[in-house]
């Protein structure tokens, strides 16, 4: 029999671990990953006609994803504000092949592609809006210099 004091210690530990996990996941999700293979994305495969001229925000969602609509709105408004930036939202619910190809384990996952369709940045989870803006500025800045 676990006595009440021990049980309360276990409860406190459970709370602390859960808070730690939540904080860590939230911190991880806002941060971009850059160590990704330089893959060129073919828009036809995703059911899109074309990619953005300077950059594409490629979002992956599912029907059963609570946070995808919110991310969709914020990315769509980001793309609207910038010339040559396109926002694509791909529903993976019926496309496990795409999920497998891009090794997507959570939705939303957002890829930022440059003008050539090469994957530059990857966000797992809800991306930090300011970081996305920075990444876009980096890409648009690069193309103006080139």
């Amino acid at each position, binding site marked *: 029999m676990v006595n009440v004091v021990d049980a309360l210690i276990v409860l406190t530990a*459970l709370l602390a671990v*859960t808070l730690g996990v*939540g904080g860590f996941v939230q911190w991880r999700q806002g941060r971009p990953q850059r160590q990704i293979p330089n893959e060129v994305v073919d828009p036809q495969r995703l059911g899109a006609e074309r990619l953005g001229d300077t950059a594409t925000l490629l979002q992956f969602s599912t*029907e059963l994803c609570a946070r995808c609509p919110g991310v969709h709105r914020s990315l769509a408004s980001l793309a609207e504000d910038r010339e040559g930036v396109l926002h694509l939202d791909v529903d*993976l619910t*019926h496309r496990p092949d795409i*999920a497998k190809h891009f090794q997507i*384990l959570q*939705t939303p996952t957002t890829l930022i592609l440059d003008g050539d369709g090469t994957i530059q940045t990857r966000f797992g989870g*809800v991306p930090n809006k300011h970081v996305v803006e920075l990444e876009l500025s980096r890409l648009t800045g690069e193309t103006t210099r080139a």
Partner: protein
Amino acid sequence: MPETTDATPRGIDPRGPRFGAAITSVLLLGTVLLSLVGLSTARAPIGWFAYAPLADDVYSAAATCTIAYASLAERALDPGFLALLVVALLFLWGVVSPRTAPWGVVYRRFVQPRLAPPTDLEDPRPPRFAQGVGLFVSAVGLALHLAGVPWALPIAAAAAFMAAFLNAVFGLCLGCMLYLLLQRVGLVGRARPNAV
């Protein structure tokens, strides 16, 4: 046809499910406490079972658990079991009829009128799916407890608590990640007739 109603679900206030998850996580925390001090983790006092080898504590751990000797009625009347049963029934309610589920009703009647109108509406299917995941986890805990497995109750309640708490506080949806994993191994989401 459920397919046609599923295709155009009415949007819900996204704060509603998080309000429900907050209440659920408090209930589950209480359940963890009750199950920790109850039958699930109880050990028989030393000397109760003369044949249990006292010297080898680890080896005899399973043999000295009280639950292994408790009757089915004793297992079912454990406060921790009853608490998790209540939470599981609430999960079931949330899966079967999300519109009438108690926390949703409380939210719409007492909380929502005091808040600003929602800036955007959310698809009701993800929270419903998450209720199903919660139901599954608690049902496994309840079944294992009835079968006499020690620690099944607090572990199941703790797992469900973590999911509910992460949803309430951080808005993280573990069920949604699970959905994608299940889809990738081919268990869900493949054979929908209206696939686009």
